[in-house]
Each structure stands twice: as C-alpha cells, then as structure tokens.
C-alpha cells in the first residue's frame, strides 16, 4: 500500500511530469515563469488546488457513477473546480489575508489551468482510489512547481544572455523547455512499485 503510494508520488513528479511528459499546464508554465517569486507563488497555489480538487472530484465522480450520469463528468468537474477556486479565494481573503496577498492573483488563473482538470480526469481514467487520488494530485502539483521554478531560474539568467533577435521571449522559452524535457526523459527508465 505504502510502496504503491510512494511509486505514484515519484512517478507523478519525475517520470510523468505534468509539464514535460503529459503536456498539461503549458500556458501558465510559459506565462508565469518570468520571475522566480511569482513562479513559487503560482506553484504553491497549484499544489493546493490540485490536491483539494483531486479529493473533491473523486467524491463527485462516485455520485455521478451511482446515478449513471458519467457523461456529465466534464461539465460537472469544471464547474466544481471553478466554484472551489472561487470559494478558496473568498475564504483566504476573509481568514488568512497574508496568504491571500501571496496567492491572490494566481488563484483565478488556476480555473483555466488544464493541469487541474487534467489530474481530476486522470485520477478517474487511472482508476485511483481516494487516498491514491489525493497523493497523485499533490505530487503532480509538486512536479508542476518543480518544472516552473527551474524554468523561472533559467529565464531570470536569460535576461542577460545574447539571444538571436527572432528567438527572444517565447521561442527560446520553448526551446529551453525542450532541452529540459530531454533531461526528464532520463527518468522514464525508472522501475517503480505499481
């Protein structure tokens, strides 16, 4: 049990990294990776929302299956996630203003981050149970944050680099991501407990 949870944890961070191997959450990945501070803020918000969304959507799916309306999955999931993000935003604003200040502007962006809906759907297609879903949500968020923070570190340095004029900005960011994806491809051979 514990071994398989550990396997899911390592696999979601390194082997099936959300950015480099599953191609989820690319928009925030290239959009928010210009500064290290904002990358860390976004990463923390994503980890939190992905963990909670995994738990909630798992429960919602049980209800949908029970009533035989599994085909509503997409609509219900996106609404649940959007409502949840809105709720978290209001809750933080009232109770923990410091945290709201730190995460505030990133929370609304998360609704359209495909990594969140992605992990919710993946938990269902991979047939994860409740605990496994939460672990997968959490560790996928960690994997996304890892990729985002590394990228932000590189891009901060890149400000001073002499890049060909046509490649400045987005194009070079994608080429760097490609090189990092090659590095992460090295994890693909790892044997993990299933």
């Amino acid at each position, binding site marked *: 049990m514990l071994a398989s949870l550990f396997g899911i944890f390592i696999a979601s961070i390194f082997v099936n990294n959300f950015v*480099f*191997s*599953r*191609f*989820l*959450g*690319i*928009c925030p990945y*290239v959009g928010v990776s210009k500064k290290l501070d904002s990358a860390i803020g976004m990463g923390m918000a994503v980890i939190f929302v992905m963990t909670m969304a995994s738990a909630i959507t798992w429960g919602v799916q049980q209800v949908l299956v029970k009533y035989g309306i599994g*085909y*509503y*999955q*997409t*609509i219900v*999931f*996106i*609404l649940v996630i*959007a409502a949840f993000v809105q709720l978290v935003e209001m809750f933080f604003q009232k109770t923990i203003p410091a945290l709201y200040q730190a995460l505030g502007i990133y929370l609304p962006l998360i*609704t*359209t*981050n*495909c990594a969140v*809906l*992605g992990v919710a*759907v*993946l938990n269902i*297609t991979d047939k994860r149970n409740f605990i496994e879903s939460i672990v997968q949500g959490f560790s996928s968020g960690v994997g996304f944050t890892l990729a985002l923070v590394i990228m932000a570190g590189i891009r901060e340095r890149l400000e001073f680099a002499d890049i*060909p*004029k*046509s*490649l400045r900005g*987005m*194009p*070079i*960011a*994608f*080429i760097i*991501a*490609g*090189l990092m*994806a*090659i590095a992460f*491809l090295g994890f693909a051979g790892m044997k993990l407990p299933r």
Partner: protein
Amino acid sequence: MNQFKVLTNGIWKENPIFVIVLGMCPTLAVSTAVENAIGMGIAASFVLIMSNIIISMIRGFVPNKIRIPCFIVVIASFVVLVELVLKAYFMPLYQALGIFIPLIVVNCIILGRAEAFASKNGVMASFLDGVGMGLGFTLALVIMATIREILGLNKFFGLLVFPKEFPAAAIMILPPGGFLVVGILMGLYVWNKNRLRLKQLNAEKMKC
C-alpha cells in the same frame, strides 16, 4: 472586406499558436501524427465556432459578474457533445486523443476568444472569428504534426516517406520534440515578420 479580414485574422496574422500562444497543451500533445492533429483541429474548431455563436447571442443578458462561469458552461456542453460523437463513431481517434478531449474545455483559445471577441461582437463576426481561429489552430497543428511525423517516424499519414533504411529521429515524437519544434517554428515566424517589416520600411525610404 471587413468580414473577410476577421476571417483571415486568425489564420495567419494572429495565429492562436504562433502569435497569441494559447492552447499549447493539446498542440504539443497531439501533434505526433497528422491524423490526430486534424482530428483535434476539427474537434476544437467545432467547439470554438459553436461557443462563439452562442456566446455572442447571449452576451446581451448575461450579467457581467458571472459571465466567465456562463461561458464555461456553454463551452463544456459542446465539448461533451464532441466527446460523445467521437466515442460513438470514431473510436480510434477518441482513444488517440484521450484525456485531451475533455480538456478542450480549458483550452485557453476558446475561453480567450469568447472573452476577447464573442462577448463584444455580433453573431456573424463571431462565427467568422471562430472559423478563422479554428483554421489557424488546425493549420499550426498540421504543420507541427507533419514535421514531427516525418522526422520522428519517417511517415506521413501513416505512409513511408523515405526508404526504410532512413534513420528516424525518435526524439521528435517524444515530448522534447514537441517543445523544440514549437520553439523553432515560433522563431521562424518572428524572423519572417521582422524581415517583411524591414522590406516595407526600406521600400518606403526609397520612395522618399
């Protein structure tokens, strides 16, 4: 003339992938084969066109504060429609695209166009914008898939391109290839744009 401009805007001048840089996730993921790229392009274009039409119809009486959830519900309904149709009639394509079919909901292009264009313009213009953006998205997907499939599998539409002995670079169909191809294509796009602008400037100087 104006309507024609709205249509062609999305195909090249404001191409959703190369210029606006939206909807990258499905682009990178499904561009490993031309067949899948066309399937994804059609599915996303259908959702984009239909949601643009509906949203421009309801924009008059949707309160401003809750417009985003309303748009998402409209988009999600069409995505479910596409999902069910693909599952019923195109099973291999449904399996190849996998998780990226439900993820059309959060494809930033669709919500982005709803917010930036359809919520401000009439039905006809929104329809044309949807067609143009959809074509631009499909075009970018097909270009990428062509490069990746030929280099990575030595195939085009599943048919051999070069003799069998030609070594295929498997890295191109693996995830890194997607990032590299997109980066290089974007660079080429910018280079071409700068070159044309320089040409225009020089021509104007000559006239003076």
